[in-house]
């Protein structure tokens, strides 16, 4: 049994301290993920709080055979989708082709043009990435955030999003190239 599974088992027996430990462990990664998805820190904190309460109420449905973090982020992702649906915000299905005004998103050969990265220092690049992240479609942004902010493996992301690993890899790559192109244009 993993440490998370043990904590879940204890929380199910009524040990609130065990659940508090789960919250402390995942408050940061979850807020990072939700913050990048909503674009607002305060909204992300409210979301995180709602989500932990939802998770607490659904602990009985968690199966220790699965990784707890994957289960948690799956709930988080579905929660976000529900939220956007209720608010009627445009969401982009991963099956839809990407229509980007700045050209093809899947260049098969490296672009030998002037280097974007060299123009900026790393800190400046990070700022530009944060701004560019808000402008790329949510479905791509989510996969990028799960991979590079939440640091899940491609296999774990495939589990969370119920997608083939190959699709996840390709979409994360597309997200990166979208970011790169938007930074180039800024």
């Amino acid at each position: 049994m993993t440490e998370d599974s043990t904590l879940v088992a204890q929380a199910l027996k009524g040990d609130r301290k065990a659940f508090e430990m789960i919250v402390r462990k995942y408050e940061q990664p979850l807020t990072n993920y939700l913050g990048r998805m909503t674009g607002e820190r305060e909204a992300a904190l409210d979301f995180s709080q709602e989500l932990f309460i939802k998770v607490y109420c659904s602990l009985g449905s968690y199966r220790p055979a699965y990784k707890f973090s994957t289960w948690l982020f799956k709930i988080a992702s579905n929660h976000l989708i529900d939220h956007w649906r209720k608010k009627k915000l445009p969401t982009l299905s991963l099956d839809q082709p990407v229509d980007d005004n700045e050209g093809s998103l899947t260049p098969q050969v490296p672009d030998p043009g002037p280097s974007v990265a060299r123009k900026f220092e790393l800190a400046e690049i990070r700022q530009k990435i944060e701004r560019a992240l808000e402008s790329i479609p949510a479905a791509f942004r989510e996969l990028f955030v799960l991979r590079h902010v939440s640091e899940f493996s491609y296999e774990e992301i495939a589990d969370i999003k119920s997608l083939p690993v190959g699709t996840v890899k390709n979409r994360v790559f597309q997200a990166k190239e979208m970011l790169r192109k938007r930074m180039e244009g800024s």
Partner: protein
Amino acid sequence: MRDCRSAETLYLYLEGELGPAERRGLEAHLEGCPACREALAERRLLHEAFTSLPPLEVPPDFALSVMDRLPEPAEARSRWLAPLVAATTSLIVGLLGFYVLTGESLSDVLVAVSRSFSSSFGRLLPLFAKLLKVSGLLLDVASGFVTMLGKGLVTLLSALGPEGIGLILGLGLLLSLLFFFGAKRLLSLGEKT
């Protein structure tokens, strides 16, 4: 160059996601391809920035605010419910079984059960009442004794005054010392014999 790798492959290489053969192939290609080396250097810097985005600040009391809003645990709520349901089910099954085996009507069985329950309860009730009465009396006597003792002590101390109290304490100390050293001497005599 004809066998230049895709940008996706470059990212996967930076993430350590390529298999050994593919990785070796790319590294061999990079040696002779300045365009791919430049593209890789650019992706490397971007990759570094992608993987080091700063965390968002979480308030220190966040976990506590979550804990305050948690509902009562479902498990704890149902803890008393399961035995109650089990007991009720067993009673119903028992009554039905009795009805099937004896052929007695269910209402007769219920009446018999309630009669036996009330007669046992009726027998035990006077005993409980007597026990309660005796404990009450004992409590009264004990509290009277403690009050009397307290009053006596207060009267004695006020009659003696500070000098008398000092004298009694001194005598008590002297007696304790004598008792202590006497006991020690007795013990050492015992050891010698």
